[in-house]
């Protein structure tokens, strides 16, 4: 934090502005408007904002009138820069005719048109001149801190980025170079703490719920199965029971997916890796696709002998889900294509299908849980909205990735990448 300064910049700016414009002619004011864009600011505000477009500096002159000075473009301005130190605001008398008055703020340079400022502070007003000098000194004193703080903020940003990439259980150290920001870091860490807690609660809740549902679901399914075999074959009762059994399976399947997702969120989606014959699995799935959708043209280009070290059950589940979607969201008499090959980046499986395309709004959300596209709802396509999210988690748990590729209109392409064994 900068030390307390006897000079309050907003007071100085207001004073300087008042003095500058006390004797200003109509011609000068016109010049101000010509050379500076006007923006509303609170009275007395100086906005030093390197984040603003084109690195503008706003200097309030009077009331709600502010001048915006643009960053240097002219080469002669750049040549002058080495002679000006950070925070300095000065008139360079020997500058070329087109040159500027330059202020350096926090290592960024803001030029002010020389003619303009010279007219504003033409020797007739020593008060304004002195005020500008004071402002310049204040800037010099304070921008050093700003520059230093900016470096710290950059480091802090890098740390925070690291933290958010590694997970909510990370904390920012309150010692070391960032100690000046101890309070900010403390607040941020507390926020992480709360986030982590509620996230864990949410994950645990769906995990626990799925876990608790398991016993009643097992009993329900078992009793239904028992009843199904006890009633006469083909009876109306048996048809009813078979229908209920289907729904119980559906319920189990959703509960199971929630449990897996909860495990993935908690980083506990543990895998039982074994050598899996990916080629055989994909050929089986292609055979399924031909059975499920005889109207579709199913093409494959599956390299022979592809093997991965993976949890076979989960991997097949993910692939089944991708291919299931490719069938569900296809066009009547459309096509489906499964490609798989070993590449330098690992083993790549590509599932493409004819489609109406995916709306931009859906593309971003397609892996979100329970997200179902408007198109899916309106076409009455069944699904829980959990499959793609789970497929991606399965891919990631294997050290791979699942992405929706950019593709030409009329097709949808998902790419699954898995590390080579």
């Amino acid at each position: 934090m900068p030390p307390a300064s006897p000079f309050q910049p907003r007071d100085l700016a207001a004073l300087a502005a008042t003095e500058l414009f006390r004797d200003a002619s109509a011609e000068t004011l016109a010049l101000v408007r010509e050379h500076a864009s006007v923006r509303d600011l609170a009275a007395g505000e100086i906005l030093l904002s390197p984040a603003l477009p084109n690195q503008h500096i706003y200097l309030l002159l009077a009331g709600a009138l502010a001048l915006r000075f643009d960053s240097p473009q002219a080469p002669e301005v750049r040549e002058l820069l080495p002679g000006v130190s950070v925070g300095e605001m000065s008139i360079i008398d020997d500058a070329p005719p087109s040159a500027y008055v330059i202020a350096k703020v926090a290592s960024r340079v803001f030029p002010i048109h020389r003619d303009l400022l010279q007219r504003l502070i033409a020797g007739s007003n020593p008060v304004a001149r002195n005020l500008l000098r004071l402002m310049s000194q204040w800037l010099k004193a304070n921008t050093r801190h700003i520059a230093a703080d900016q470096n710290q903020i950059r480091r802090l940003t890098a740390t925070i980025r690291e933290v958010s990439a590694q997970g909510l259980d990370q904390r920012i150290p309150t010692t070391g170079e960032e100690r000046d920001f101890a309070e900010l870091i403390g607040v941020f860490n507390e926020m992480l703490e709360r986030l982590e807690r509620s996230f864990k609660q949410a994950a645990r809740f769906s995990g626990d719920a799925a876990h608790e549902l398991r016993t009643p679901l097992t009993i329900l399914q078992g009793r239904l199965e028992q009843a199904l075999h006890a009633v006469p074959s083909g009876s109306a009762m048996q048809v009813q029971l078979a229908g209920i059994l289907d729904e119980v399976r559906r319920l189990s399947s959703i509960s199971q997916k929630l449990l897996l997702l909860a495990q993935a969120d908690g980083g506990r989606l543990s895998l039982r890796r074994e050598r899996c014959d990916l080629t055989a699995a994909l050929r089986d799935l292609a055979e399924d696709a031909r059975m499920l959708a005889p109207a579709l043209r199913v093409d494959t280009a599956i390299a022979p002998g592809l093997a991965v070290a993976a949890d076979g059950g989960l991997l097949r589940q993910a692939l089944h889900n991708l291919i299931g979607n490719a069938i569900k969201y296809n066009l009547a008499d459309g096509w489906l294509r499964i490609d798989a090959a070993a590449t330098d980046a690992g083993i790549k499986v590509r599932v493409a299908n004819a489609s109406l395309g995916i709306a931009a709004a859906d593309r971003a959300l397609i892996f979100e849980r329970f997200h179902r596209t408007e198109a899916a709802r309106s076409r009455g396509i069944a699904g829980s909205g959990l499959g793609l999210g789970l497929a991606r988690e399965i891919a990631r748990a294997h050290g791979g990735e699942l992405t929706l590729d950019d593709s030409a209109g009329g097709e949808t392409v998902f790419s699954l990448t898995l590390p080579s064994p």
Partner: protein
Amino acid sequence: MKTLLVEDEKRIADFVCAGLREQGFSVDHCDNGNEGYERAAAGSYDVIVLDIMLPGRDGLSVLKGLRRAGNATPVILLTARNELDDRIEGLNLGADDYLAKPFFVEELVARIHALVRRISGERQNVLAVGGLRLDRITREVAWQGQTVDLTGREFNLVEYLMRAPGRVFTRTQILEHVWGYDFDPSTNIVDVCIQRIRKKIGVDRDGESPIEAVRGVGYRFRKLKADA
């Protein structure tokens, strides 16, 4: 076949015992790990069905104790699906198979048969009902002496139905056994697969396929008229 079921949830144990007995198994049941271990160690069972979460010694501890004592009775673990750590540990400790809850008793029966067959040196490799003959090792199928070429899924489906002629299997039971992963239960893949099998096999002298549809329920392998 003599089976020991160790499962603490009474309502689960009830239907498992009933289901296994209905299919000709003799079943002993106990509801805690300590008694489970005693019985397993003392009795001569063909197979042990073991829940993992048990009062007293848990399932994995029972399994470990049995194997350490040199007891090699085949064990099927009942576990929550994808309680993977348990599964991995169970398999490492010498479980022969595992079945995820919720499960079909029908699937448990199929697993027990497969397991016992494997352990006992694959004695019953050939399944023959009516005019259909199926070799589990060579995976060859013949209908009335003629070779039939079935895909992997088709073979597994026929084998599943053939194990219990006359018994009806629902689409979801068949899905679970043949495909294994989560299919939307409204899928028609079972029906399509059955149609393909029927087409490949053809009909008998009476013009009937060995695989019958039970409308609204599922499918069954035709029982020989003499057995009816």
